[in-house]
């Protein structure tokens, strides 16, 4: 197929960074311009291109709503914990002990095994200076990795894509869900979002009966490289007359007219959609996953990894952590779901032989307050633990468990900035310069 050949040429071009006249004379204008722009860029940026069979992969798992860190990683030996939570406390004989001070929630049996095997790191007391207790704002801070007193519009992963993955396929970032996470927001948006692979495609008016409808075939013509060389030229002229849209001056898009840019995005969309659907059809897991949304998300991710999609960052989320009332059953169920899904995901990756290539990191916008409330729940807090796990992760406890008596307005005081975790993952796992992505250098942790 013509488009496949085009992509290969583009890939090859990017890898060798040679502008071969022989390779480009047949290319539509917009692609040619892309190549020129990328070539200039390749000289001074560490462009990350993976073939899909190698390269490290980051999976970000968001626990949305503010996960109760105290009942996930439990300071069971601390009397203050039992005093502050007469109804919600988990007793010493229930919990899965990590050492003589802290333990895991009884539901986290899979996580405990991973920890014992040496594949799970627990980072304790994670937050940022001047914590914000609004879901919206604190999520924004975690997603953009900004300081609490300023706002940023681009996400930290978006800045990684912008700075380190220019020229990569859009599938360099894959978010499973209805909405693209703000972490992916970028000057040059890349990354794809879908909740089910079948959604990530052009839907014709007449639902297909297994074969391409006429509409779909014509759609492909209209969206593949602007329909050919001839129209590429006509189109780029048309685009020039409109070119008033002020594109941000980064990466490779600033030399492209708006129509060139749209045509490239349309081609990318079609290629990514084909690739994702092909992998989703071909690769099934032999591991049994539990029911539910999070499970479906990690199952898709595992299949995309098995299929060799060239993705560096996957993003999934689990909701429902905002447990203001009747927390005990809800949180137990959420911990159980999280544990069972992660256990299935890890088993799947091990079976594929990809566990060494994958690092999964959890986060939540904040923890809960130390003291339980009058409704058998907990309110918005601050510092909380994060899990980082994977075949190459060094197990252990990182950071310090915050004191339960020396509090900041009733909340745990943080000792590890979440950007230390991000920075470590960027520098040591994705091999990307963290100070460029995060704006400055944060102390690294020995998790990888």
């Amino acid at each position: 197929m013509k488009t496949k050949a085009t992509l290969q040429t583009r890939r090859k071009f990017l890898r060798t960074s040679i502008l071969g006249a022989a390779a480009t004379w047949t290319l539509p204008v917009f692609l040619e311009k892309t190549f020129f722009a990328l070539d200039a860029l390749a000289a001074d940026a560490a462009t990350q291109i993976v073939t899909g069979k190698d390269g490290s992969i980051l999976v970000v798992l968001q626990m949305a709503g503010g996960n109760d860190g105290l009942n996930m990683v439990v300071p069971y030996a601390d009397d203050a914990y039992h005093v502050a939570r007469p109804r919600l406390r988990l007793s010493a004989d229930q919990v899965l002990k990590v050492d003589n001070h802290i333990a895991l929630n009884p539901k986290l049996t899979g996580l405990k095994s991973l920890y014992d095997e040496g594949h799970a790191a627990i980072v304790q007391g994670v937050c940022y200076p001047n914590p914000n207790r609004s879901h919206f704002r604190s999520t924004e801070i975690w997603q953009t990795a900004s300081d609490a007193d300023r706002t940023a519009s681009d996400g930290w992963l978006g800045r990684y894509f912008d700075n380190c993955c220019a020229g990569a396929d859009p599938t360099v970032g894959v978010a499973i869900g209805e909405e693209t996470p703000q972490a992916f927001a970028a000057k040059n948006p890349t990354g794809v979002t879908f909740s089910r692979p079948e959604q990530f495609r052009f839907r014709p008016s007449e639902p297909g009966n297994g074969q391409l409808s006429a509409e779909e075939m014509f759609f492909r013509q209209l969206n593949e490289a602007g329909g050919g060389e001839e129209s590429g030229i006509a189109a780029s002229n048309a685009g020039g007359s409109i070119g008033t849209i002020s594109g941000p001056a980064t990466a490779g898009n600033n030399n492209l007219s708006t129509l060139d840019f749209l045509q490239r995005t349309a081609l990318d969309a079609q290629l990514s959609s084909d690739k994702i659907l092909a992998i989703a059809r071909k690769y099934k897991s032999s591991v049994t996953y539990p029911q539910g949304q999070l499970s479906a998300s990690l199952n898709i991710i595992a299949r995309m990894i098995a299929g060799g999609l060239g993705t560096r960052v996957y993003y999934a989320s689990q909701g429902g952590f905002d447990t203001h009332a009747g927390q005990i059953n809800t949180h137990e169920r959420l911990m159980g779901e999280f544990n069972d899904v992660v256990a299935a995901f890890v088993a799947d990756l091990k079976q594929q032989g990809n566990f060494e290539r994958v690092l999964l990191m959890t986060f939540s916008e904040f923890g809960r307050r130390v003291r339980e409330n009058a409704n058998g729940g907990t309110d918005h807090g601050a510092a909380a633990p994060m899990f980082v796990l994977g075949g190459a992760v060094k197990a252990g406890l990182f950071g310090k468990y915050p004191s339960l008596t020396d509090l900041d307005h009733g909340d745990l005081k943080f000792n590890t900035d979440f950007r230390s975790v991000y920075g470590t993952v960027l520098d040591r796992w994705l091999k990307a310069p963290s100070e460029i992505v995060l704006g400055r250098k944060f102390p690294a942790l020995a998790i990888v």
Partner: protein
Amino acid sequence: MNTPPPAPIAAQNAMRQMGQILFAPPNVKGWDGGKEWISTSTLLFRYNFANYLINGDAILPPNLQQRRQGADVGFGPAARLAEEVRREPIDLSQLVPTDVRGKPREVVDLLARRFFQTRPAQKEIDTFVKYLETRSSETSDATLRELIHLMMSTPQFQLA
């Protein structure tokens, strides 16, 4: 388009999926214009949302329609949602008069003038014409709606 706007809930969901959450701009300046709003995901979503605007709720996933039929067996909220996103296909009687329907090039010219701000390149025009020609000669409403959806599912249309 001579057609009612989409149901508020559908419009709201569409904007959310395209990254523009009502009352929640990305920063204090509001929404930036330009390329930041176009990605592979949002582009595909625009194409598929156009499908809904043109063809109505019949193109939505079948389970939504099934849920509507199951309205009396306890799917209250889902049934209400299905009801809220109900939409008729657009009416073509005014848009494309019957006397031009047998003439593909005239139909395409008419619709291209209507839907594109800048006339698409000849190559695209020819592709649209070829599409009509390969369909049945009587040019039914369904075929015309497919054509309009095709027109809206092009990079060129996004500039309109």
